[in-house]
């Protein structure tokens, strides 16, 4: 199955892209996808233990099982709102 990965902020810059497709085995979890992502994009691998994940625009825990076509966003600590 395929999930569409979205990268933001420091991760987007380190990876040199904001979006990529990840080919995963059926039943793969978010945490498992992060491992595959770190292998594919070594520049961001050491960030991936300190980020949150959203699937289809909702925060999810690492054990969430992905489905074909999901949008998986890697969310570094947020810092909106104030200077």
């Amino acid at each position, binding site marked *: 199955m395929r999930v569409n990965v979205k990268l*933001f902020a420091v991760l987007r810059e380190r990876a040199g892209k904001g979006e990529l497709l990840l080919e995963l085995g059926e039943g793969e979890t978010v945490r498992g996808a992060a491992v595959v992502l770190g292998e594919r994009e070594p520049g961001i691998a050491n960030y991936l233990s300190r980020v949150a994940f959203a699937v289809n625009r909702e925060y999810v825990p690492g054990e969430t099982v992905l489905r074909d076509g999901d949008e998986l966003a890697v969310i570094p600590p*947020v810092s909106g709102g104030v200077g």
Partner: protein
Amino acid sequence: MGRGWVEIISTPLDVDLATKSVQEADVGGIVVFLGTTRAEKNADGRELIALDYEAYPEMALAQMRKLADLAYEKWPVGELALLHRVGRVRVKEPSVIIAVATPHRADAFEACRWMIDELKKSVAIWKKEVWADGSRSWVHPES
């Protein structure tokens, strides 16, 4: 629910417009919060000139929408506006404006404070410091 003016905007935020959008006849207290880019100098004397804000727009907007809906549930909000800017926000300019109007002022203060605190905690928006010498660095508070 979908009440209130909730938007992510790439041009300068207008406090007058935000305030007027909540200034209805059945409210008596309006609290407006502006988060602005504060001038800073770091240890080696570099000066901050701006913050660049980046959003995951679809998720951030849905989160802001949800915060607004919750505020309407938790307090007797007459009207509210919850606006976040993206792109370059120079020193003195606001990156966020939250305006809340309620019949009595205590609720407006509480709801406005709650919305900015929640927004900072969870909404998918990031900022990068832009220094006068051209250097830049992402701000990731908990990392």
